[in-house]
């Protein structure tokens, strides 16, 4: 079959796999991962030693092991303890746990970069710890964290391809499925690479818009 014809025929199935696989996988695990990251960052900044140790342990474990290995372990550990979970859910859990570990350090640094006076001013108007975080500290920390978190997000788009190994239908997996009967892996992989690239270009624009939004809204 003609190479160009194959590329054209597989364009929609690949884009569709990105739309129903790669993009929701990335978005959901990034949002859940941010929640994990904030909790781990707060644990690491806590006055309670046990929480600090747990936070450090988590970050060390996640950053010290390959994402592919984490995905395999999560995929095989649930059946082992008797919980049935589909590949999609396992993929989201693995990516969430992973992003949480990396973004935790970013968020911890950003929280520390908010001037101490902001905590003190909040204390003088009698805001409690949670309100101070929610209303005063985290909004300023997120502004500081936008550029590094955008990096993490763009990495995650590409890292999500690793869940193809446990059978989650996303962009890379779809490319493999189409390529297998034709033996034309080169065409399909190049096509998949171009689609990943296109997604990341769009995200880079979005990052710039977001940074401008925060710049206009407030200065730290």
């Amino acid at each position: 079959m003609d190479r160009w014809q194959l590329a054209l025929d597989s364009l929609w199935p690949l884009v569709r796999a990105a739309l129903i696989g790669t993009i929701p996988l990335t978005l959901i695990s990034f949002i859940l991962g941010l929640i994990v990251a904030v909790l781990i960052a707060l644990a690491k900044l806590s006055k309670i030693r046990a929480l600090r140790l747990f936070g450090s342990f988590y970050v060390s474990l996640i950053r010290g092991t390959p994402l592919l290995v984490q995905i395999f372990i999560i995929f095989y550990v649930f059946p082992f303890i008797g919980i049935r979970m589909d590949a999609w859910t396992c993929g989201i859990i693995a990516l969430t746990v992973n992003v949480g570990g990396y973004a935790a350090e970013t968020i911890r640094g950003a929280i520390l970069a908010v001037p101490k006076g902001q905590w003190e001013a909040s204390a003088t108007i009698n805001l409690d710890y949670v309100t101070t975080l929610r209303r005063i500290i985290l909004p300023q920390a997120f502004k500081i964290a936008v550029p590094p978190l955008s990096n993490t997000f763009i990495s995650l788009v590409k890292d999500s391809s690793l869940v193809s190994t446990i059978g989650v239908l996303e962009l890379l997996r779809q490319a493999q499925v189409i390529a297998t009967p034709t033996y034309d892996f080169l065409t399909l992989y190049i096509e998949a690479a171009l689609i990943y690239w296109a997604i990341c270009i769009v995200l880079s624009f979005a990052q710039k818009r977001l940074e401008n939004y925060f710049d206009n809204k407030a200065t730290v």
Partner: protein
Amino acid sequence: MSLLSVRGIHKTFGKNQVIRGIDLDIEPGTVTVIIGPSGCGKTTLLRSLNGLESPEKGVVSIDSVQVNYAEKPTAADVSLLRSKTGFVFQAHHLFPHRTVLQNVTEGLIYGPSLKRPASEANALGQSLLDQVGLGDKAKAYPSDLSGGQQQRVGIARALALQPKLLLFDEPTSALDPEIVGDVLQLMRKLAREGWTMAVVTHEIQFAKQVANNVVFVDQGVIVEQGTPQEVLANPRHPRTREFLRRVLDPLADDAEYAEEVAS
């Protein structure tokens, strides 16, 4: 009875004994100005009054709330003490991501003990901004304001919670000289309205005109205190005299200058 009473405050940073036993009383409706060389412990003393610092020892009572620092007060105890005070920082510490009005109303709406409805808080916030002369800046962000305006918002934020005692930590030290007057005039106005205030400052003129009680702190203790007439015009202690001489005439120690004047 005094509004504020402080007994036996001791505070150490590492090996450095910053406060070595301070007692202080403040009567309702009076202005107390705390002066002293930098590093003497005056700011630490002020910050101990609302729990921004935790001294090792000492008792602070404000309007029936008492905190004994030796007994490791809980966050709730300190919060109760704080609800009696408003605090104005040297570097204002306004919330940069909130408008001027939101800075003033934040504690009213989100302070757990108050929880005013937003409409009520906004009306009060607006009237406070009018009072500090910034009624037209409600929607601006702190970064849009000059240093003096920012500090006046800081004062409005402190007033919003209607505290019994206003604490000022060098409120004009970070300002350009020509706008120091704006802030000091506002503080004088508040004093005339009857607010009870404790002010750490280097503005001796302000102390002379506005203070009921002047407290001179050096090396972690109160060296002397009294009316401005007593402490500023006729200081008894040599350390007070030395401090005032340096503050009022910073060039006095310059030998070359002294020679020039002599010749």
